[in-house]
């Protein structure tokens, strides 16, 4: 008998793969073969389920059981208990932190309750390496219907009326962008470019889409090609995303061999093909003009716009650049209609947005919510609140170009305009949560270190200005800053924003400006009192041993990596402040609470 009665889906995203999911997959296949059940039970390597915090994840259909933090050693038990005997394995089920109940079905988990998966609709559901599974989920139907029944102008109109805005960060209306590109004609060709250069610290939305549902990008790029009159597509992807590259390459090859890419697609006169270009991983190459130069083999430096790529793009030909997540939405818009799409989300930002939720939240992972969901819902309901019962302090959105939002912004409905109004931005969707132990000037310094490192150096404000900003932040976090420095920070930031050549420089001072604005007191404490209120800046804190509490157990002295603690058995110990590296190991070791941080 060969009827398949059960599916075992194992997450094959980068996150779970690095926690041995390949071994889990192999074990499943072996265990099922040993029991001669390999014909009845199908093992599927899927894309990311999003709940990376609890990975590796194994899902069993049709009873929809969601096993979390599975190890290769657990496979035997799942096969023996669940697959053979039909009994769930309770110890591998998710435990709700609020009610301590075991939840077997992802539908009933807080993490999934408020999510709506449009761009991620197939991630974690299909085998990304199998084109049949994509077709079974209406894959390439949007393209087929368009080629048979619609003119390019109608396609553009539909995208326009859906209200889709670019998910790469800027939020520019996608339909309008396509219309611009369609207006320019070129004898020598036109290009559709997919921007898969995901550079924001903490962001992994685009990578997960390419890993989990690469055909949706191939299909959407073809649709765009038809709409704007291009016959060539290019994906610019980071070479350090090997799994995404492999899956995308596989998708392109299978689409080509099935006739869904190449000459006269589906019997129409439309021909389109896609190539991959590798980026070396430079943040600035996410900017479209820099990206194009990098693809041409030049240095990845931006040039001023206009001319926009729609007019003069790759090799001087008209080109349309969209980000991965933007493309992922396109087939869904045509399958379900622009009205369906625009009914989701807010009036000016329809649809959903994928966020890479990271930092000090309980449930780190990939989250897709309708626009207009509040930050509070994302962080506390889906994210499960702050790790370790600590207090929420701030959330950084929009990556190095964005800013920090605080407690009072938590009820902001997330969309492009609201986040800008609140002093941050959507960006590509990185969302990093911070708690009371995070120092805001240090956070600003972290982002500046990133932009200084990533600046291409072409224009002076960015190359020199950001370096100066970083130096001032270093002074402040070392307790050597002055009030004058705070003023310079603000003024110089304004100049850099106004005079930089591209988006990288224009937005680089944003983390500083937003933390200055919202955490002014913290900057003042560093400057005037030489004190770090969150106890993070090493130069401003010191560890002391309370002589009344010290029992002379020598534990701290033995643990200290710098030999900074002296004292013999049963005598009071002392820390040599000059030698101390302020790692805090002594405080963690002391059983008597004798060591404190001041």
């Amino acid at each position, binding site marked *: *008998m060969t*009827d*398949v*009665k*059960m*599916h075992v*889906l194992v997450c094959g995203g980068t996150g779970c793969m690095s926690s041995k999911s390949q071994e889990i997959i192999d074990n499943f296949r072996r265990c099922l073969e040993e029991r001669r059940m390999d014909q009845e039970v199908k093992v599927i390597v899927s894309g990311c389920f999003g709940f990376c915090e609890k990975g590796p994840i194994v899902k069993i*259909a*049709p*009873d*929809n059981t969601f096993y979390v933090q599975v190890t290769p050693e657990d496979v035997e038990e799942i096969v023996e208990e669940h697959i*053979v*005997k*039909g*009994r769930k394995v309770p110890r591998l089920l998710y435990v709700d932190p609020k009610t301590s109940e075991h939840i077997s079905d992802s*539908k009933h988990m807080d993490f999934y309750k408020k999510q709506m998966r449009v761009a991620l609709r197939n991630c974690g*559901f*299909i085998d990304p390496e*199998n*084109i*049949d*599974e994509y*077709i*079974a*989920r*209406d*894959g*390439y*139907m949007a393209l*087929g*219907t368009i*080629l*048979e029944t619609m003119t390019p102008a109608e396609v553009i109109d539909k995208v326009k009326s859906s209200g889709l805005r670019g998910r790469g960060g800027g939020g520019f209306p996608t339909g309008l962008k396509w219309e611009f590109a369609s207006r320019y004609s070129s004898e020598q060709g036109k290009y559709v470019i997919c921007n898969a250069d995901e550079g924001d610290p903490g962001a992994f939305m685009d990578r997960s889409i390419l890993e989990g549902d690469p055909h949706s990008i191939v299909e959407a790029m073809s649709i765009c090609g038809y709409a704007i009159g291009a016959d060539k597509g290019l994906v610019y992807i980071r070479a350090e995303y090997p799994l995404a590259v492999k899956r995308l390459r596989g998708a392109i090859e*299978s689409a080509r*061999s*099935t*006739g*869904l890419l190449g000459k006269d697609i*589906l*019997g129409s006169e439309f021909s389109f093909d896609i190539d991959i270009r590798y980026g070396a991983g430079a943040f600035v190459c996410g900017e479209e003009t820099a990206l194009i130069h990098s693809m041409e083999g030049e240095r990845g430096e931006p040039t001023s716009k206009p001319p926009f790529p729609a007019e003069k793009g790759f090799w001087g030909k008209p080109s349309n650049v969209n980000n991965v997540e933007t493309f992922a939405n396109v087939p869904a818009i045509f399958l379900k209609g622009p009205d369906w799409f625009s009914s989701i989300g807010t009036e000016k930002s329809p649809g959903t947005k994928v966020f890479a939720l990271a930092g000090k939240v309980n449930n780190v992972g990939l989250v897709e919510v309708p626009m207009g969901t509040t930050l509070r819902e994302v962080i506390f309901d889906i994210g499960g609140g702050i790790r370790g019962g600590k207090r929420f302090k701030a959330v950084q959105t929009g990556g190095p170009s964005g800013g920090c939002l605080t407690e009072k912004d938590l009820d902001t409905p997330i969309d492009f305009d609201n986040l800008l109004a609140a002093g941050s931005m959507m960006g590509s969707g990185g969302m990093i949560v911070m708690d009371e132990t995070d120092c805001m000037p240090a956070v600003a310094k972290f982002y500046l270190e990133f932009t200084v490192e990533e600046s291409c150096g072409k224009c002076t404000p960015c190359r020199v200005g950001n370096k100066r900003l970083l130096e001032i932040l270093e002074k402040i976090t070392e307790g050597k800053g002055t009030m004058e420095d705070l003023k310079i920070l603000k003024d110089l930031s304004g100049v850099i924003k106004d005079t930089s050549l591209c988006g990288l420089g224009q937005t680089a001072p944003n983390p500083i400006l937003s933390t200055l604005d919202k955490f002014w007191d913290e900057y003042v404490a560093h400057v005037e009192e030489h004190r770090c209120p969150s106890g993070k800046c090493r130069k401003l804190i010191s560890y002391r041993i309370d002589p009344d509490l010290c029992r002379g157990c020598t534990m701290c002295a033995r643990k200290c990596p710098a030999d900074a603690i002296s004292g013999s058995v049963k005598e009071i110990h002392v820390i040599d402040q000059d030698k101390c590296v302020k790692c805090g190991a002594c405080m963690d070791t002391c059983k008597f609470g004798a060591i404190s941080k001041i």
Partner: protein
Amino acid sequence: MSTIKSLDELKKIRAQMKSATELREKGQDIEKLVQVKVSMGTCGIVAGARETLDGLMEEVKSRGIDNVVFTQTGCMGYCHSEPTVEITLPGQDPVVFGDVSGNRISEIVERYIVEGELVDGVIPVAYKTIHE
């Protein structure tokens, strides 16, 4: 796979491939489906549970019923009445049928799964589980 040359061909292939993801799609709304569990302990298998499972699947397929999912399970403890089959209709409590073989297979599909009418040979529930 050979080349797909038109939208109609794509639609045909989609229809063929639907079954590849069907179980997963169904799993999204399992409570709205008929769930059939066939007891597959040693006693069940010896008594012909595998033939019963095949028979049930064949019967359901030939009638074009598409809201049923099958799983196999371990011994339910009714060794005296193997093969045993547990059927849960949407929104109802599970019912266990004993001695399901031969004609009883089509009878159960016809009368219980399709019509929702109880058939002779139901094993009364004589135990409680820790989940209750």
